[in-house]
């Protein structure tokens, strides 16, 4: 005699934290010679909620899985991830054809905490592709400027190695037109470059913010963050008012704080990070190896 399954057992269940959800590549934008932004579309009935600063584990099926920051704002169009091609998995992601499936697990980790910026000067310092995890935060902060719970102003300071490595150029112009103070510098300029040439710390020294009332968000390679944070503190920004994204070079795997691959000193970064305050991270930033 055949057994009739209860109706609820036939309903689709929410996948566990280790099961990727299949998204489709909707669009692929070349940001720099080796950097691509993927616009990913979830399947029908698959809402995806996140906060700026969080990351997903992206799967290139048959190749592997990597942690990649979310570079879009919540509730604004497709899910965006900005990926630099540095190995086989990121290469497969960067070259994924339109319409092809990408596995998404997440979102994981802590966020930038943009609800804490009431009447503060929001100072965003980004190096290279480190601008990607900040984009969503910048957009939400700009929307809130002037509101009681929003920041007083938004200052965006961006450094890149060369002009062709500068990502989100049109966003930089948009943010500037929306009232943000935007400054960009490159380490080495090419002929025709009209912007600044020099290190990102110089931008921190010259930017128009009130250090005493500033909250800073910093993201980039660890060595860049060390120097940028030094410059912020020299300007008078309180260490407790600096948040940074410290996932760099750490090996995220499970995304759930179980495997321990991303452990950095006392922190399991996929859960206690990747966004942390500077006092929590200051010693770790200067460690040669952990």
């Amino acid at each position, binding site marked *: 005699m055949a057994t009739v399954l209860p109706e609820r057992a036939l309903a689709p269940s929410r996948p566990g934290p280790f099961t990727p959800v299949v998204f489709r590549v909707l669009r692929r934008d070349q940001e720099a010679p080796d950097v691509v932004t993927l616009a990913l579309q979830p399947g029908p009935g698959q809402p995806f909620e996140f906060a700026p600063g969080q*990351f997903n584990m992206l799967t290139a099926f048959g190749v*592997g899985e*990597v*942690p*990649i*920051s979310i570079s879009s704002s919540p509730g604004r169009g497709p899910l965006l991830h900005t*990926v*630099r091609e*540095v*190995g*086989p*998995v*990121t290469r497969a992601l960067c070259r994924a054809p339109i319409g092809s499936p990408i596995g998404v697990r997440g979102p994981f980790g802590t966020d930038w905490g943009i609800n804490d910026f009431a009447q503060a000067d929001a100072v965003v310092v980004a*190096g*290279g*592709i*480190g601008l*990607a*995890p900040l984009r969503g935060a910048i957009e939400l902060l700009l929307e809130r400027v002037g509101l009681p719970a929003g920041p007083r102003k938004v200052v965006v300071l961006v*450094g*890149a*190695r060369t002009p062709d*490595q500068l990502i989100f150029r049109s966003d930089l112009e948009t943010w500037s037109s929306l009232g943000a103070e935007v400054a960009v*510098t490159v*380490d*080495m*300029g*090419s*002929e025709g*470059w*009209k*912007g*600044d*040439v*020099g*290190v*990102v*710390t*110089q931008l921190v020294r*010259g930017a128009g913010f009130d250090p005493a009332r500033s909250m800073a968000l910093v*993201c*980039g*390679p660890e*060595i*860049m963050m060390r*120097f940028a944070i030094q410059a912020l503190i020299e300007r008078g920004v309180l260490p407790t008012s600096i948040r940074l*994204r410290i*996932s*760099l*070079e*750490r*090996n*995220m795997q499970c995304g759930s704080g179980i495997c321990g691959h*991303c452990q950095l000193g006392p922190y399991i970064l996929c859960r206690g990070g990747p966004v942390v305050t500077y006092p929590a991270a200051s010693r770790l930033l200067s460690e040669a190896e952990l």
Partner: protein
Amino acid sequence: MELSASSRLLHHPLFAGLPLATVERISLDAHNVAFEPGQVILAEGSPASTLYLLEHGKVALSAHAPGRGHVLVQTLGPGEVLGLSWLFPPYQWRFDAHAVEFVEALAVDGARLRALIEDDPVLGYQVIKRIAPLVVERLQQTRVQLLDLYGSGTNGYGNRPA
């Protein structure tokens, strides 16, 4: 009303705080200069004879690299100093410099200033004390640039190459 050269010198970080009489002596060898965008200000290898105190606009320092054209290594803006090679032998510019935007500056005769501070060691000490931090800061900036802050071979904010 345009400020006098001595007032502008006193407002510039390089000379701010010096005795007025000293600044007035230096101002006798100062004059206004302006450069259109793209105009060459310094040419590598040519005699270094002027200290430029930038007041408006942006200047790019560059060097010509075969096969790469002019590589821009630094930009300078208002409040900054362009050109220190007039102070040290062989008194030749080490880099090219051109105006990126319309530039206005106060140009001080470097040879005269050098003679002035050699004759007056107290003034010389004061001037060198102001120039040394600029040199140190530029050295530190260059070291940071050498560190290649933005790295290669990693995804820049994710994990190891994968």
